[in-house]
């Protein structure tokens, strides 16, 4: 499934990445980002972050990130008390630069993935995940 997904993503030319929103002022997570990038500029594009638009359960939200050519991908939940989630590291023999995990979100917030590429450049994608009370269906 991973291979199909990756192939499709490549064919689709980053359609899913269009959901990336302009990053807002990152008071939260600034420290983690600075430590990861060393203050380098971060480009948009090249990272596919897949999250649900609305979390079915804020305690366990599935997150997938895919950044072909990355050596490292850091995932941040900017609205959490502790924004750092995880960092995936990929060795030179890695068949895919893809990671999938579940994270806990305390409230509606932006989830961000920042990839460090082999050439030392950085790219990112963000998406908003809504955590809601719910309860009314059509």
């Amino acid at each position, binding site marked *: *499934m991973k291979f*199909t*997904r990756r192939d*499709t*993503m490549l*064919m*689709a030319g980053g*359609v*899913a990445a*269009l959901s990336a929103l302009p990053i807002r002022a990152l008071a939260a997570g600034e420290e983690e980002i600075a430590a990861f990038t060393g203050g380098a500029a971060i480009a948009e594009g090249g990272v596919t972050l*897949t999250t*649900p*638009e*609305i979390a*079915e*359960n804020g305690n366990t939200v*599935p997150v997938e990130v895919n950044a072909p050519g990355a050596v490292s991908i850091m995932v941040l939940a900017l609205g959490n008390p502790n924004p750092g989630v995880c960092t995936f590291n990929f060795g030179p023999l890695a068949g895919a630069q893809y990671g*999938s995990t579940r994270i806990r979100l305390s409230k*509606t917030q932006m989830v961000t993935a920042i990839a460090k590429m082999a050439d030392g450049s950085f790219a990112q994608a963000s998406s*908003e995940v*809504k955590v*809601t*009370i*719910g*309860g*009314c*269906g*059509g």
Partner: protein
Amino acid sequence: MISRRDFLQASMAASAIYGASGFGAWGRLAAQQALTQDQLLQFDTFGNVSLIHVTDIHAQMKPIFFREPEINLGVGGNVGQVPHITGADFRKLYGVADGSASHYALSYNDFTALAGTYGKMGGLDRVATVINSIRAERPDALLLDGGDTWHGSYTCYHSEGQDMVNVMNALKPDAMTFHWEFTLGGDRVRDIVADLPFAALGQNIFDSEWNEPTEDFAPYKFFERGGVKIAVIGQAFPYLPIANPRWMFPEYSFGIRDERMQEMVDEVRGMGAELVVVLSHNGFDVDKQMAGRVQGIDVILSGHTHDALPEPVLVGETIIIASGSNGKFVSRVDLDVRDGRMMGFRHKLIPIFSDVIAPDAEVAAVIDAERAPYEAQLSEVIGHTAEDSLLFRRGNFNGSWDDLICDALMSEREADIAMSPGVRWGPSILPGSAITREDIWNVTSMSYGEAYRVEMTGEFIHTVLEDVADNLFNPDPYYQQGGDMVRIGGMGYRIDINQPIGSRISELTLLKTGEKLDPAKTYVVAGWASVNQGTEGPQIWDVVENHIRKLGTVSVTPNTSVQVAGA
């Protein structure tokens, strides 16, 4: 999205697709009071493929009255776009004559008077007649059910959906997708699906433990009709575990998952599909957005938001069909598919006027057999509506049925404030009519109907309203859940629909004292349909029945307690 005139021009200009809608014809005939079954069904068979779409029947096997909404506001890019156009504006847009049958079927004004003229709508025995007539012209037409089928009535509740399964099986659908069906519980749904003589589809139904596609529902099914390879992809309601109780089907996860939708479209195209149809329970605005993001879908048969549109909406080269609810309409879509692509369409939203379309005897017998064991309970008269009181539900903020339900909750449960879920199902009751037990169940029946009574702070009540308002008025359709605002009894508020979450709701006022709600103070709140496991209380239909029995005659007054800004 685009106006009707733009749509027609766009479809001409695009030249890849040309289309026609049969709406005008029956609209004019209806205006002349010369409605016949032949005219309702008249359709010049076109192309080589026919699709028949029914959706959101909510277990309404018999004809009903159903008033369409007065208030159905769009936000973001959907301000003033269908389906967020109602009443006179809607009639003007589609050229519907005032007082015509189509006015009655598609808009809310003068509902009581027109209901007297044109009668009830729907009835699955009448729907069967329409389907049979289409199949007589096109024997291999595909019948596709958009879901919300096995939910919404006394008999459906007591048979755990079996009555609707048996009646729908008699109509011989080819595929179906899902929403409220899952509130029967995961086990029950799997039991029914195991024996279904047609495809149960949902590309977005995942195993919640592994976050992988479940093996219980196929993403798509191939059909070969009229020499055309057709792929039908299912899309279940994306927000089931949020809008409905997750604990009833914990093994499943949903979501929009448009990246997988794109994978599935690419996969079926790669397998030779010449026509790609998405049978969707996304809701109309979500379908429009998905049509713009996922490439290669020819037709989206849209359900969930209960919109009845007399013409398709075109997004790129995708046509979106909305076929109403509660059995009021059947859509027929004829397609010309040549050289591996859709070249044109002809469409008709067929209104099921129950006094005009003859019931199919075979299906009528199946319906009667399902109802027979419950007939005495169904038909018991509990009360009456006053001569000036129409009971209806649809509308973004309130409906007289919900006002009555909230009154029942406050009175029977001795509460300050009542909350009733903003669902869009539930038929209307005309003034001066008997209210039977069946009528009460038609607007309340569900597998989690317990009426709770809890204490909430003013602050929490505000949070609830903000949360639900964002599910309705978030400018990004992918963050909307497709219901209406939670209905409130005993309290008024102001809403500015264009504000962000946290800033839409203000001036919360306790009606019995006229005082503003104190965020720190505690209020007794009664409600029903909680998504929380272990909710305790009497069933809502018993609460409402007791209340109506005491009233005898039900009088409703216009609800003016919600002030709307930004519309």
